[in-house]
């Protein structure tokens, strides 16, 4: 089944290889695309319909009904911020719709704290060849489709 993945944030679509973290850049947990957020405080939205199976202030995973997990990581090394500046709009285990606000955060504050605010969107455990339509360099709005995951 073809699964459309929405951008969790507004910004510039960027190749995962440009993410300043080897785990994401080398697709160790899966392939995908990153979005360099534009602007300040905003809500990161769910990339797919599903259940929030993992939830940290700075990152979350939404799993679809057929068991595919999409990871959204808000900035790099932002675990060190201990949740400061991040506002959770959902709880772990909650069902969400694609486009629904999940976490409020401020990419500008992340940048000011010395971290990259880039947002990797990862198709967990997927093989790169099942993803398509990965544009990079273009501007996307939160909720815009950024790639398709065929199973």
């Amino acid at each position, binding site marked *: 089944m073809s699964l459309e993945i929405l951008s969790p944030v507004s910004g510039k679509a960027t190749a995962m290889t440009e993410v300043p973290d*080897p*785990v994401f850049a*080398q697709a*160790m*947990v899966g392939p995908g695309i990153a979005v360099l957020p534009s602007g300040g405080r905003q809500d990161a939205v769910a990339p797919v319909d599903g259940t929030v*199976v*993992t939830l*940290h202030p*700075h*990152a*979350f*995973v939404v799993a679809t009904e057929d068991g595919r*997990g999409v*990871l959204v*990581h808000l900035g790099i090394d932002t*675990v060190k911020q201990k949740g400061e500046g991040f506002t959770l709009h959902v709880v772990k285990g909650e069902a969400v719709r694609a486009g629904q606000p999940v976490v409020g955060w401020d990419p500008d504050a992340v940048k000011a704290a010395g971290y990259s605010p880039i947002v990797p969107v990862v198709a*967990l*455990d997927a093989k790169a060849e099942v993803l398509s339509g990965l544009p990079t360099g273009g501007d996307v709005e939160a909720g815009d489709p950024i790639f398709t995951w065929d199973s």
Partner: protein
Amino acid sequence: MADDRAEKILAGLGGAENVIEVEGCITRLRCELEDMSLLDEAALKAAGAMGVVRMGAGVQVIVGPEADNIASDIEDLL
């Protein structure tokens, strides 16, 4: 199954006495070790790690989104 994995990962980190701190992040275990030379990357990969990234005095063991659960299992073993 996760318990078994925690034990194997802990062994790959050089055992409980070698671990100063383990913190579960969303995709990885961030570990601070007493002696980095006791790190056994092959054992960690055999235990299911997708990658092992050395960072200064620490090491990140990439285990995917179950990192949190594995980290708490490891903490129980420390």
